[in-house]
């Protein structure tokens, strides 16, 4: 009996750690202009190490969202297109960000911040109208919106036929 209780406690303890209740960000779909170019600066923390990233998001209400991520010196690390239907296309990957990671995590983070996310897939905190922290099992992303330019984006940005071959 004691052994079972101990095991139950252990399971609860471990399970409790793994599934520590985290707040969910409400996707601020209306917080950003439907047609815009949004510049972001992020700090990605993985296994205690931090990497700075720049994000450039082209947003179209009818054609989707296109995110290009670069490192400090401008090299493109990831490029992803998310159609309004939620269909996701990895346009470019890199050694830093593999296609799977971009598809599964980066695209989800875009939806969490800019709309289109499903309930429960956005563990994180909105610290201000332009400052967000996403907490996932594998990483934490601290993201700030640093510039927003309103206006329609070029249709070519949302052309999925240019996606990287997988």
């Amino acid at each position, binding site marked *: 009996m004691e052994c079972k209780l101990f095991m139950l406690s252990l399971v609860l303890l471990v399970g409790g750690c793994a599934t520590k209740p985290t707040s969910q960000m409400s996707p601020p779909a209306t917080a950003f202009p439907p047609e815009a*170019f949004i*510049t972001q*600066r992020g*700090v990605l*923390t*993985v296994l*205690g*190490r*931090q*990497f*700075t990233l*720049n994000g*450039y998001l*082209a947003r179209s209400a009818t054609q989707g969202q296109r995110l*290009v991520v*670069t490192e*400090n*010196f*401008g*090299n*493109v690390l990831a*490029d992803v297109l998310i159609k309004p239907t939620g269909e996701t296309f990895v346009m470019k990957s890199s050694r830093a960000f593999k296609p799977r990671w971009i598809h599964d995590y980066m695209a989800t983070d875009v939806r969490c911040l800019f709309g289109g996310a499903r309930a429960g897939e956005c563990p994180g905190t909105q*610290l*201000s109208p332009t*400052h967000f922290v996403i907490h996932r099992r594998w990483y934490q992303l*601290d993201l*700030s919106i*640093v*510039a927003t330019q309103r206006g329609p984006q*070029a249709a*070519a*940005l949302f052309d999925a036929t240019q996606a990287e071959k997988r």
Partner: protein
Amino acid sequence: MTMMLTLAVSAGAVDGGGSLTSVVDPKPLLRELQGKMSAVTSLYLEFTQERQLKLFTEPLKSEGVMLIDRPDQIRWETTAPYQSILLGNHKSVAQFERTDGQWKKLKLGFPQMLKRVMEQMTLMNQGKLDGLTNEFNVSVATGSVTVVTMVPLDENVRAMLASLEVTMRPDFSATLEVVMNEPGGDLTRIRFTREKRGVKFPPETFDQTKPLDVAAVKAAVGDGM
């Protein structure tokens, strides 16, 4: 990596009007450049960086300052549209990010890689371009400006960086512009302005624990905001 290295060399608004003549043997000019730069004990530059991706109609812009103090201190600070400080010397590197009005020191993911980049930036700004002839095909053209063009010899590097162009005043008294051309047509252009040589930086300018605010640095070097 090599692409990052190119950020090192300083340059600015280029006089595009005059025609340039290719120099047959660039080595004497490169030696002259190194000789001039070796006398420079410190360097203050403001920069505007434009990343031109074919994907976007408008370039992605940022601006900031680059500070170098002999023998090995370097500070590359982006002031807009976000605020970030990279600091390096021969021993270590550090990065700070400003969010919600607070500076935070980062636990860097690849400090050795960043350290190498910062070291290369320092060396390049000492005019040690001749030492790169093992890695680049270096050519020089002169006219109203002097343009040093470097094409990577390594095919793998060339797949990322087609060429690097450094534009300077003819007497090497200031670097005006650096352009990094990529094979697909994308490029990064860094224009340097307000270059000051031989300035005295406040001691905390390169402090990797609490670097002095850039406004205070600017005031100290006589370039107050």
